[in-house]
């Protein structure tokens, strides 16, 4: 006879209400793992979307994502001529902010050379950029429509949306936009008209815009990547990172602070959840003291009483966990950030929940073990 189940059924409403509250708490824990997964995914997304084997960047930097990197625009041609390189493309990366009908819009702009590595890998609507100027591909999360014009930069040029990507955002949640390299260079390096006039007036030479942040290279499968990377790095004005090194940089250093912050929130949530489940189990045990005394009096072994409390704690946790998971899955599309729920991270939260429930039942079990069977005889 399962006493835990019978007691739950007897007080079903209270159990359900408790589970609802707990499911919100555990839902937040699941959500945080999803946010963390999303953070990693977004941090790596740009590096992975480029589909590169090698990243050629400014020496002494960890660019172009972790740090600023600036190299001459003709670097791509040098890299492309190197033995073992199949394809190469120059890219720029920058964040821009504009205002559309009074609403601020932040975009992460990637400039790429048409028909070379570095552009969007998959479009969900529209077409690729066909013209060299003033066309843009943007992620759906920006809330822009095909054909819409977006003013960007100091000269106020308008860029027409011609294509859409999906789930292409940065680790900060900003939608990614793609421009031609020329447009992106102008956005990044072009001076505002008053600044240009001042430069001319003081007799200074106008700075060239032909600069890029990195060169992406695809290496022939028949040539070892490390060898090519070493060969490129022999140029003193360049550094080369392999794709693995780039991903390691991003996942280790770029989101390190976010990782720690989320880890702290997670630990706090686990502690709070454990305390709350402990209090719930303790209160449920308090309500059953007379029944527990009676059970002891009629000869029920300790394992029956411990089982009653632990099974109830586990039931609370498991129902709360699955209800929380369902909640998160239902509201996933409406969440303002991208959540990536990996089965492994959900399994970790599940294990944490089980451990929390076992730890939380300790208080209740201690209380139950102290109950004097004689108290069942008291009036």
């Amino acid at each position, binding site marked *: *006879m399962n*006493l835990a189940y*019978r*007691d739950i*059924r*007897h*007080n079903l409403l209270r159990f359900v209400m408790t589970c609802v509250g707990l499911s919100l708490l555990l839902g937040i824990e699941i959500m945080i793992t999803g946010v963390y997964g999303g953070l990693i995914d977004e941090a790596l997304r740009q590096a992975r979307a480029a589909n590169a084997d090698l990243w050629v960047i400014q020496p002494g930097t960890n660019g172009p994502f972790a740090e600023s990197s600036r190299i001459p625009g003709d670097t791509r041609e040098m890299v492309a001529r190197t033995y073992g390189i199949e394809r190469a493309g120059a890219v720029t990366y920058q964040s821009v902010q504009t205002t559309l009908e009074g609403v601020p819009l932040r975009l992460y702009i990637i400039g790429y050379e048409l028909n070379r590595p570095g552009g969007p890998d998959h479009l969900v609507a529209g077409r690729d950029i066909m013209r060299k100027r003033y066309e843009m591909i943007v992620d759906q999360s920006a809330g822009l429509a095909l054909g819409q014009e977006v003013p960007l930069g100091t000269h106020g040029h308008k860029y027409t949306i011609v294509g859409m990507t999906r789930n292409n955002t940065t680790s900060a949640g900003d939608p990614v936009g793609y421009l031609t390299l020329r447009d992106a260079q102008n956005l990044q390096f072009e001076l505002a008209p008053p600044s240009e006039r001042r430069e001319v007036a003081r007799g200074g030479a106008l700075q060239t815009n032909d600069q890029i942040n990195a060169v992406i290279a695809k290496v022939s499968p028949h040539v070892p990547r490390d060898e090519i990377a070493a060969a490129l790095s022999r140029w003193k004005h360049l550094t080369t990172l392999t794709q693995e090194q780039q991903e390691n940089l991003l996942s280790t250093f770029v989101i390190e602070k976010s990782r720690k912050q989320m880890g702290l929130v997670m630990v706090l949530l686990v502690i709070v959840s454990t305390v709350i489940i402990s209090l719930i189990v303790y209160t449920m045990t308090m309500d059953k003291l*007379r*029944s527990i005394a*009676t*059970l*002891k*009096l*009629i*000869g*029920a*072994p300790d394992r*029956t009483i411990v089982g009653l409390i632990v099974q109830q704690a586990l039931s609370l946790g498991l129902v709360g966990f699955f209800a929380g998971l369902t909640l998160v899955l239902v509201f996933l599309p409406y969440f303002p950030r991208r959540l990536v729920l990996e089965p492994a991270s959900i399994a970790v939260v599940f294990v944490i929940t089980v451990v929390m429930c076992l730890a939380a039942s300790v208080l209740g079990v201690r209380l139950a073990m102290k109950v*004097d*069977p*004689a108290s*069942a*005889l008291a*009036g």
Partner: protein
Amino acid sequence: MADPVEPALVEIENLSKHFGEGETRVDALRGVSLQVFPGQIVGLLGASGSGKTTLLNCVGCILEPNGGRMTLDGDVVYDDRWLRSDLRRLRLEKVGFIFQFHNLLPFLNCADNVGLVLQLAGFGAAAARARAIELLDYFEVGRHKDRMPAQLSGGEAQRVAIARALANRPRIILADEPTASLDSHRAGIVMDLLRKIAVEQHAAIIAVTHDEKIFGRFDEVFHLRDGQLDADAAGGRRFEPTDMQTSARHDRAEC
């Protein structure tokens, strides 16, 4: 009066129990000796604080005495500071409890309240339920087998509680104010049931009570005063046995 046919089910010799030490020490039991035989219903009377409940708790293996000797159904439970270890098992197998308030588990229906004791003793679920329903029928509450305790009247709940106390056919039944929460009619029914159990199961029943209307239903009454048996009640004061008890004793003597 002791029944000469069978050995005593409860034998207590010079039992003592105190609480606290030094100035706060309270001697709850001081050298109490008594015997209860199969088929007997014994009453423990006394004022508040006289030691009735302490004695009942010691016999029920809930409290550890501080001195003396106690055997239950031939098993030594306590012998001058030696205490048997498997007291909970002993309670499950040999002792049945009837409370002032029924103390049925509120989350189990009547059949499961009775069946739980049987399952704890090793019965399978189906066998336990069958025996539980049989017992409930015996106490004329079988129709309530699927009801929860909160849906029963006081008398019905008490009868279910008695059925639970008897589920494992214990030889010693301890009742703490079994009729206190009942009117005189229902109290009479409960006492008749206890008499029936004592006779049919050869069980010894010890009841603590203040209920004067059932004093006459006991075979022997022990008065406790300040932790001791009243001097003029040593060995118990005998009430006239009922016809039922007399016939039962004759039956057993003939066996």
